[in-house]
Protein backbone atom coordinates (compact mmCIF):
# COMPACT_ATOMS: atom_id res chain seq x y z
CA UNK A 1 0.00 0.00 0.00
CA UNK A 2 1.47 3.35 -0.99
CA UNK A 3 1.97 6.33 1.29
CA UNK A 4 -0.77 8.43 -0.29
CA UNK A 5 -3.38 5.75 0.44
CA UNK A 6 -2.24 5.51 4.05
CA UNK A 7 -2.32 9.31 4.27
CA UNK A 8 -5.87 9.28 2.93
CA UNK A 9 -6.90 6.86 5.70
CA UNK A 10 -4.98 8.78 8.37
CA UNK A 11 -6.79 12.02 7.53
CA UNK A 12 -9.96 10.40 8.80
CA UNK A 13 -8.53 10.88 12.29
CA UNK A 14 -9.83 14.47 12.17
CA UNK A 15 -13.42 13.19 12.03
CA UNK A 16 -12.76 10.46 14.57
CA UNK A 17 -11.34 12.99 17.04
CA UNK A 18 -14.05 15.58 16.26
CA UNK A 19 -16.85 13.09 16.99
CA UNK A 20 -15.16 11.84 20.15
CA UNK A 21 -14.26 15.25 21.61
CA UNK A 22 -17.52 17.04 20.74
CA UNK A 23 -19.71 14.21 22.03
CA UNK A 24 -17.59 13.98 25.16
CA UNK A 25 -17.82 17.72 25.89
CA UNK A 26 -21.57 17.86 25.34
CA UNK A 27 -21.97 14.65 27.34
CA UNK A 28 -19.85 16.06 30.18
CA UNK A 29 -22.30 18.98 30.49
CA UNK A 30 -25.41 16.89 29.85
CA UNK A 31 -24.19 14.43 32.45
CA UNK A 32 -24.53 17.11 35.15
CA UNK A 33 -28.22 17.36 34.28
CA UNK A 34 -28.63 13.59 34.25
CA UNK A 35 -26.89 13.19 37.61
CA UNK A 36 -28.94 16.07 39.03
CA UNK A 37 -32.19 14.48 37.88
CA UNK A 38 -31.12 11.08 39.25
CA UNK A 39 -30.61 12.51 42.76
CA UNK A 40 -33.41 15.09 42.57
CA UNK A 41 -35.42 15.75 45.71
CA UNK A 42 -38.59 15.18 43.67
CA UNK A 43 -39.52 11.56 43.31
CA UNK A 44 -41.21 11.78 39.85
CA UNK A 45 -38.08 13.37 38.38
CA UNK A 46 -35.93 10.60 39.86
CA UNK A 47 -38.22 7.90 38.46
CA UNK A 48 -38.34 9.40 34.96
CA UNK A 49 -34.57 9.95 34.94
CA UNK A 50 -33.96 6.38 36.01
CA UNK A 51 -36.28 5.09 33.27
CA UNK A 52 -34.59 7.17 30.55
CA UNK A 53 -31.11 6.10 31.69
CA UNK A 54 -32.09 2.42 31.75
CA UNK A 55 -33.78 2.67 28.35
CA UNK A 56 -30.84 4.35 26.65
CA UNK A 57 -28.39 1.86 28.11
CA UNK A 58 -30.47 -1.17 27.23
CA UNK A 59 -30.39 -0.53 23.46
CA UNK A 60 -27.14 -0.83 21.44
CA UNK A 61 -25.59 2.51 20.30
CA UNK A 62 -25.84 1.41 16.64
CA UNK A 63 -29.64 1.21 16.97
CA UNK A 64 -29.82 4.74 18.41
CA UNK A 65 -27.55 5.97 15.63
CA UNK A 66 -29.87 4.48 13.00
CA UNK A 67 -32.97 5.85 14.75
CA UNK A 68 -31.45 9.34 14.69
CA UNK A 69 -30.07 9.16 11.15
CA UNK A 70 -32.65 7.08 9.24
CA UNK A 71 -35.63 7.17 11.60
CA UNK A 72 -35.84 10.89 12.35
CA UNK A 73 -35.27 11.73 8.67
CA UNK A 74 -38.44 9.84 7.91
CA UNK A 75 -40.26 12.08 10.41
CA UNK A 76 -38.87 15.14 8.64
CA UNK A 77 -35.93 15.79 10.99
CA UNK A 78 -32.94 15.54 8.68
CA UNK A 79 -29.45 15.53 10.10
CA UNK A 80 -26.18 15.04 8.27
CA UNK A 81 -24.27 11.85 9.14
CA UNK A 82 -21.83 13.89 11.23
CA UNK A 83 -24.63 15.69 13.11
CA UNK A 84 -26.43 12.39 13.70
CA UNK A 85 -23.27 10.88 15.15
CA UNK A 86 -22.75 13.86 17.48
CA UNK A 87 -26.40 13.86 18.64
CA UNK A 88 -26.40 10.11 19.30
CA UNK A 89 -23.07 9.88 21.07
CA UNK A 90 -23.66 13.09 23.05
CA UNK A 91 -26.93 11.71 24.44
CA UNK A 92 -25.39 8.34 25.25
CA UNK A 93 -22.35 10.05 26.81
CA UNK A 94 -24.62 12.26 28.96
CA UNK A 95 -26.22 9.14 30.39
CA UNK A 96 -23.00 7.26 31.09
CA UNK A 97 -21.12 10.31 32.40
CA UNK A 98 -24.16 11.25 34.49
CA UNK A 99 -24.04 7.83 36.13
CA UNK A 100 -20.31 8.30 36.73
CA UNK A 101 -20.96 11.69 38.38
CA UNK A 102 -23.68 10.14 40.51
CA UNK A 103 -21.19 7.55 41.72
CA UNK A 104 -18.80 10.37 42.60
CA UNK A 105 -21.55 12.22 44.46
CA UNK A 106 -22.40 9.14 46.47
CA UNK A 107 -18.73 8.82 47.43
CA UNK A 108 -18.67 12.46 48.54
CA UNK A 109 -20.81 11.91 51.61
CA UNK A 110 -23.66 14.00 52.94
CA UNK A 111 -21.45 15.63 55.58
CA UNK A 112 -19.74 17.87 53.03
CA UNK A 113 -23.03 19.29 51.82
CA UNK A 114 -24.43 19.69 55.32
CA UNK A 115 -21.26 21.48 56.45
CA UNK A 116 -21.35 23.83 53.46
CA UNK A 117 -25.01 24.63 54.12
CA UNK A 118 -24.38 25.24 57.79
CA UNK A 119 -21.77 27.90 57.01
CA UNK A 120 -24.35 29.53 54.73
CA UNK A 121 -22.92 28.83 51.25
CA UNK A 122 -25.31 29.58 48.39
CA UNK A 123 -26.35 26.78 46.06
CA UNK A 124 -24.06 27.81 43.16
CA UNK A 125 -21.14 28.15 45.58
CA UNK A 126 -21.98 24.76 47.04
CA UNK A 127 -21.88 23.20 43.58
CA UNK A 128 -18.80 24.99 42.25
CA UNK A 129 -16.63 25.19 45.37
CA UNK A 130 -17.56 22.12 47.38
CA UNK A 131 -19.14 19.45 45.21
CA UNK A 132 -17.46 19.87 41.81
CA UNK A 133 -13.79 19.91 42.91
CA UNK A 134 -14.18 16.79 45.01
CA UNK A 135 -16.34 14.89 42.53
CA UNK A 136 -14.03 15.75 39.61
CA UNK A 137 -11.15 14.21 41.51
CA UNK A 138 -12.88 10.92 42.17
CA UNK A 139 -14.48 10.56 38.76
CA UNK A 140 -11.78 11.79 36.37
CA UNK A 141 -10.20 8.34 35.83
CA UNK A 142 -13.64 6.83 35.07
CA UNK A 143 -14.40 9.74 32.74
CA UNK A 144 -11.16 9.20 30.84
CA UNK A 145 -11.90 5.48 30.55
CA UNK A 146 -15.32 6.36 29.19
CA UNK A 147 -13.66 8.79 26.76
CA UNK A 148 -11.52 5.97 25.38
CA UNK A 149 -14.67 3.89 24.98
CA UNK A 150 -16.26 6.78 23.11
CA UNK A 151 -13.24 6.96 20.79
CA UNK A 152 -13.84 3.33 19.88
CA UNK A 153 -17.61 3.86 19.57
CA UNK A 154 -16.99 6.72 17.12
CA UNK A 155 -16.08 4.02 14.57
CA UNK A 156 -19.83 3.29 14.37
CA UNK A 157 -20.25 6.59 12.54
CA UNK A 158 -18.68 4.86 9.54
CA UNK A 159 -21.90 2.88 9.11
CA UNK A 160 -23.87 6.03 8.27
CA UNK A 161 -21.18 7.46 6.02
CA UNK A 162 -19.07 9.79 8.16
CA UNK A 163 -15.66 9.69 6.45
CA UNK A 164 -13.72 8.93 9.63
CA UNK A 165 -10.86 6.42 9.84
CA UNK A 166 -12.80 3.16 9.80
CA UNK A 167 -14.94 4.35 6.88
CA UNK A 168 -11.83 5.21 4.86
CA UNK A 169 -10.10 1.93 5.72
CA UNK A 170 -13.22 0.11 4.55
CA UNK A 171 -13.22 2.07 1.26
CA UNK A 172 -9.56 1.26 0.68
CA UNK A 173 -10.10 -2.40 1.58
CA UNK A 174 -12.87 -2.71 -0.97
CA UNK A 175 -10.98 -0.88 -3.71
CA UNK A 176 -7.57 -2.50 -3.27
CA UNK A 177 -8.26 -5.84 -1.57
CA UNK A 178 -5.63 -4.92 1.00
CA UNK A 179 -7.97 -4.96 3.98
CA UNK A 180 -5.45 -6.35 6.44
CA UNK A 181 -3.02 -3.48 5.85
CA UNK A 182 -5.78 -0.86 5.92
CA UNK A 183 -7.46 -2.08 9.13
CA UNK A 184 -4.20 -2.89 10.92
CA UNK A 185 -3.14 0.68 10.13
CA UNK A 186 -6.27 2.25 11.65
CA UNK A 187 -5.99 -0.20 14.55
CA UNK A 188 -2.56 1.18 15.37
CA UNK A 189 -3.88 4.76 15.20
CA UNK A 190 -6.71 3.91 17.65
CA UNK A 191 -4.15 2.41 20.04
CA UNK A 192 -1.89 5.47 19.67
CA UNK A 193 -4.84 7.81 20.36
CA UNK A 194 -5.97 6.00 23.48
CA UNK A 195 -2.49 5.44 24.97
CA UNK A 196 -1.80 9.08 25.95
CA UNK A 197 -5.24 9.40 27.55
CA UNK A 198 -4.47 6.36 29.69
CA UNK A 199 -1.09 7.75 30.71
CA UNK A 200 -2.54 11.21 31.38
CA UNK A 201 -5.27 9.73 33.58
CA UNK A 202 -2.75 8.01 35.78
CA UNK A 203 -0.67 11.21 36.12
CA UNK A 204 -3.69 13.42 36.72
CA UNK A 205 -4.91 11.04 39.36
CA UNK A 206 -1.50 10.90 41.05
CA UNK A 207 -1.15 14.69 41.01
CA UNK A 208 -4.58 15.30 42.47
CA UNK A 209 -3.99 12.75 45.18
CA UNK A 210 -0.74 14.50 46.06
CA UNK A 211 -2.35 17.93 46.08
CA UNK A 212 -5.24 16.96 48.27
CA UNK A 213 -3.22 14.51 50.34
CA UNK A 214 -5.68 11.67 50.12
CA UNK A 215 -4.61 8.09 50.13
Amino acid sequence: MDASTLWYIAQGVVWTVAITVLSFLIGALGGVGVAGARVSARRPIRIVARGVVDLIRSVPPLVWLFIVYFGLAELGLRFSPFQSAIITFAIIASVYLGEIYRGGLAALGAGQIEAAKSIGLSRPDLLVRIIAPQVVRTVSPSMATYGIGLLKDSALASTIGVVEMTFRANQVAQNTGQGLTAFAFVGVIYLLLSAPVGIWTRRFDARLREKYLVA
Partner: protein
Amino acid sequence: MDLITWFGYVVELLPGLWKAVQLTVISLALGYPLALLFAVLIDSKIAPIRWIILVLVEVGRGLPLLVLLYLFYQGLPQLSVVLSALASAVWAFTWSAAAYATEIIRSSLRSVGSGQREAANAIGLEDRDQFRYVILPQAARIAIPPLLGLAIIMFQLTSLAYVIAYSEVMQSAYFLGTKTFNYFPVFLAAAAVYASVTIPASALVTGIERRLSRHV
Protein backbone atom coordinates in the same frame (compact mmCIF):
# COMPACT_ATOMS: atom_id res chain seq x y z
CA MET B 1 -48.74 3.15 11.30
CA ASP B 2 -50.81 0.99 13.55
CA LEU B 3 -49.71 -1.20 16.40
CA ILE B 4 -50.41 -4.47 14.58
CA THR B 5 -48.10 -3.54 11.67
CA TRP B 6 -45.45 -2.53 14.16
CA PHE B 7 -45.80 -5.77 16.04
CA GLY B 8 -45.41 -7.53 12.69
CA TYR B 9 -42.01 -5.80 12.37
CA VAL B 10 -40.97 -7.06 15.79
CA VAL B 11 -41.93 -10.61 14.77
CA GLU B 12 -39.92 -10.31 11.56
CA LEU B 13 -36.84 -9.42 13.62
CA LEU B 14 -37.07 -12.47 15.86
CA PRO B 15 -35.02 -14.80 13.59
CA GLY B 16 -32.31 -12.10 13.79
CA LEU B 17 -32.58 -12.17 17.58
CA TRP B 18 -31.95 -15.92 17.54
CA LYS B 19 -28.83 -15.33 15.39
CA ALA B 20 -27.65 -12.65 17.81
CA VAL B 21 -28.13 -14.98 20.78
CA GLN B 22 -26.23 -17.75 18.96
CA LEU B 23 -23.31 -15.43 18.24
CA THR B 24 -23.26 -14.24 21.87
CA VAL B 25 -23.37 -17.75 23.34
CA ILE B 26 -20.67 -19.16 21.04
CA SER B 27 -18.32 -16.21 21.61
CA LEU B 28 -18.75 -16.32 25.38
CA ALA B 29 -18.38 -20.11 25.53
CA LEU B 30 -15.05 -19.74 23.71
CA GLY B 31 -13.98 -16.37 25.11
CA TYR B 32 -14.46 -16.84 28.86
CA PRO B 33 -12.42 -20.06 29.23
CA LEU B 34 -9.76 -18.41 27.05
CA ALA B 35 -9.84 -15.42 29.40
CA LEU B 36 -9.20 -17.65 32.43
CA LEU B 37 -6.19 -19.08 30.60
CA PHE B 38 -4.98 -15.58 29.67
CA ALA B 39 -5.49 -14.30 33.22
CA VAL B 40 -3.20 -17.04 34.54
CA LEU B 41 -0.64 -16.87 31.73
CA ILE B 42 -0.33 -13.07 31.82
CA ASP B 43 1.71 -13.50 35.02
CA SER B 44 3.73 -16.36 33.50
CA LYS B 45 7.41 -16.67 34.40
CA ILE B 46 8.22 -17.15 30.70
CA ALA B 47 8.55 -13.66 29.23
CA PRO B 48 7.49 -14.37 25.59
CA ILE B 49 4.22 -15.95 26.78
CA ARG B 50 3.57 -12.92 28.99
CA TRP B 51 4.17 -10.54 26.07
CA ILE B 52 2.01 -12.45 23.61
CA ILE B 53 -0.92 -12.54 26.03
CA LEU B 54 -0.46 -8.87 26.89
CA VAL B 55 -0.53 -7.87 23.20
CA LEU B 56 -3.61 -10.06 22.57
CA VAL B 57 -5.44 -8.48 25.52
CA GLU B 58 -4.43 -4.89 24.79
CA VAL B 59 -5.29 -5.14 21.09
CA GLY B 60 -8.57 -6.89 21.88
CA ARG B 61 -9.56 -4.09 24.23
CA GLY B 62 -7.94 -1.19 22.40
CA LEU B 63 -9.39 -1.61 18.90
CA PRO B 64 -13.01 -0.84 18.13
CA LEU B 65 -14.88 -4.13 17.78
CA LEU B 66 -15.95 -2.88 14.35
CA VAL B 67 -12.29 -2.80 13.27
CA LEU B 68 -11.74 -6.33 14.66
CA LEU B 69 -14.73 -7.54 12.65
CA TYR B 70 -13.41 -5.95 9.47
CA LEU B 71 -9.93 -7.36 10.13
CA PHE B 72 -11.29 -10.90 9.99
CA TYR B 73 -13.89 -10.38 7.29
CA GLN B 74 -12.12 -7.99 4.93
CA GLY B 75 -8.53 -8.28 6.16
CA LEU B 76 -7.85 -12.01 6.00
CA PRO B 77 -8.77 -12.30 2.30
CA GLN B 78 -5.55 -10.33 1.67
CA LEU B 79 -3.78 -13.48 2.95
CA SER B 80 -6.12 -15.63 0.84
CA VAL B 81 -8.06 -16.71 3.92
CA VAL B 82 -11.78 -16.18 3.36
CA LEU B 83 -14.04 -16.58 6.38
CA SER B 84 -17.84 -16.64 6.39
CA ALA B 85 -19.69 -13.81 8.14
CA LEU B 86 -20.45 -16.12 11.09
CA ALA B 87 -16.84 -17.33 11.40
CA SER B 88 -15.48 -13.76 11.21
CA ALA B 89 -17.98 -12.59 13.82
CA VAL B 90 -17.16 -15.50 16.15
CA TRP B 91 -13.40 -14.79 15.91
CA ALA B 92 -13.83 -11.05 16.50
CA PHE B 93 -16.35 -11.37 19.35
CA THR B 94 -14.40 -14.17 21.03
CA TRP B 95 -11.25 -12.08 20.93
CA SER B 96 -13.03 -9.04 22.33
CA ALA B 97 -14.88 -10.97 25.05
CA ALA B 98 -11.68 -12.81 26.04
CA ALA B 99 -9.72 -9.55 26.26
CA TYR B 100 -12.23 -7.76 28.51
CA ALA B 101 -12.90 -10.88 30.61
CA THR B 102 -9.16 -11.36 31.17
CA GLU B 103 -9.03 -8.04 33.02
CA ILE B 104 -12.10 -8.95 35.11
CA ILE B 105 -10.76 -12.39 36.02
CA ARG B 106 -7.26 -11.08 36.70
CA SER B 107 -8.46 -8.45 39.14
CA SER B 108 -10.75 -11.00 40.83
CA LEU B 109 -7.86 -13.44 41.27
CA ARG B 110 -5.77 -10.63 42.76
CA SER B 111 -8.49 -9.61 45.15
CA VAL B 112 -8.25 -12.95 46.94
CA GLY B 113 -6.07 -12.03 49.93
CA SER B 114 -2.52 -13.35 50.24
CA GLY B 115 -3.49 -14.81 53.60
CA GLN B 116 -5.59 -17.39 51.75
CA ARG B 117 -2.53 -18.57 49.83
CA GLU B 118 -0.39 -18.60 52.96
CA ALA B 119 -3.00 -20.63 54.80
CA ALA B 120 -3.25 -23.06 51.89
CA ASN B 121 0.54 -23.36 51.92
CA ALA B 122 0.52 -23.96 55.65
CA ILE B 123 -1.84 -26.92 55.35
CA GLY B 124 0.41 -28.29 52.59
CA LEU B 125 -1.77 -27.86 49.48
CA GLU B 126 0.09 -28.08 46.19
CA ASP B 127 0.04 -25.07 43.84
CA ARG B 128 -2.53 -26.66 41.57
CA ASP B 129 -4.85 -27.58 44.42
CA GLN B 130 -4.43 -24.14 45.95
CA PHE B 131 -5.65 -22.58 42.73
CA ARG B 132 -8.42 -25.11 42.20
CA TYR B 133 -9.87 -25.30 45.72
CA VAL B 134 -8.87 -22.05 47.45
CA ILE B 135 -8.25 -19.18 45.01
CA LEU B 136 -10.62 -19.95 42.13
CA PRO B 137 -13.86 -20.45 44.11
CA GLN B 138 -13.38 -17.16 45.95
CA ALA B 139 -12.35 -15.27 42.81
CA ALA B 140 -15.34 -16.70 40.92
CA ARG B 141 -17.75 -15.15 43.38
CA ILE B 142 -16.26 -11.73 42.68
CA ALA B 143 -15.90 -12.25 38.91
CA ILE B 144 -19.37 -13.63 38.13
CA PRO B 145 -21.43 -10.39 38.27
CA PRO B 146 -19.07 -8.36 36.01
CA LEU B 147 -18.74 -11.34 33.63
CA LEU B 148 -22.53 -11.50 33.35
CA GLY B 149 -22.59 -7.73 32.77
CA LEU B 150 -20.02 -8.16 30.01
CA ALA B 151 -22.21 -10.88 28.48
CA ILE B 152 -25.07 -8.37 28.20
CA ILE B 153 -22.73 -5.84 26.57
CA MET B 154 -21.50 -8.50 24.12
CA PHE B 155 -25.11 -9.30 23.25
CA GLN B 156 -25.72 -5.62 22.47
CA LEU B 157 -22.53 -5.49 20.41
CA THR B 158 -23.72 -8.29 18.13
CA SER B 159 -25.57 -5.45 16.38
CA LEU B 160 -22.18 -4.55 14.85
CA ALA B 161 -22.10 -7.83 12.92
CA TYR B 162 -24.58 -6.05 10.68
CA VAL B 163 -21.62 -4.49 8.81
CA ILE B 164 -20.33 -7.88 7.65
CA ALA B 165 -23.78 -9.04 6.53
CA TYR B 166 -24.37 -11.46 9.41
CA SER B 167 -28.16 -11.67 9.54
CA GLU B 168 -28.68 -10.56 13.15
CA VAL B 169 -31.32 -8.04 14.32
CA MET B 170 -29.87 -4.91 12.70
CA GLN B 171 -29.23 -6.61 9.38
CA SER B 172 -32.86 -7.78 9.35
CA ALA B 173 -34.06 -4.33 10.46
CA TYR B 174 -32.08 -2.53 7.77
CA PHE B 175 -33.43 -4.90 5.15
CA LEU B 176 -36.98 -4.41 6.45
CA GLY B 177 -36.42 -0.64 6.48
CA THR B 178 -35.34 -0.47 2.85
CA LYS B 179 -38.25 -2.70 1.89
CA THR B 180 -40.99 -0.75 3.69
CA PHE B 181 -39.37 2.72 3.96
CA ASN B 182 -40.70 2.78 7.51
CA TYR B 183 -37.26 3.25 9.04
CA PHE B 184 -38.45 4.90 12.22
CA PRO B 185 -40.89 2.19 13.40
CA VAL B 186 -38.61 -0.56 12.14
CA PHE B 187 -35.60 0.64 14.13
CA LEU B 188 -37.83 1.23 17.15
CA ALA B 189 -38.87 -2.40 16.78
CA ALA B 190 -35.17 -3.35 16.76
CA ALA B 191 -34.67 -1.27 19.92
CA ALA B 192 -37.61 -3.08 21.55
CA VAL B 193 -36.14 -6.47 20.62
CA TYR B 194 -32.81 -5.62 22.26
CA ALA B 195 -34.41 -4.02 25.32
CA SER B 196 -36.69 -7.02 25.83
CA VAL B 197 -33.57 -9.10 26.40
CA THR B 198 -31.23 -6.63 28.12
CA ILE B 199 -33.65 -5.14 30.65
CA PRO B 200 -34.69 -8.46 32.26
CA ALA B 201 -31.10 -9.74 31.95
CA SER B 202 -29.74 -6.68 33.79
CA ALA B 203 -32.33 -7.10 36.54
CA LEU B 204 -31.28 -10.74 36.86
CA VAL B 205 -27.61 -9.81 37.09
CA THR B 206 -28.36 -7.25 39.82
CA GLY B 207 -30.22 -9.96 41.76
CA ILE B 208 -27.36 -12.43 41.39
CA GLU B 209 -24.86 -9.78 42.44
CA ARG B 210 -26.83 -9.08 45.61
CA ARG B 211 -27.03 -12.78 46.40
CA LEU B 212 -23.34 -13.44 45.80
CA SER B 213 -22.18 -10.50 47.89
CA ARG B 214 -24.38 -11.48 50.83
CA HIS B 215 -21.66 -13.01 52.97
CA VAL B 216 -18.69 -11.06 51.67
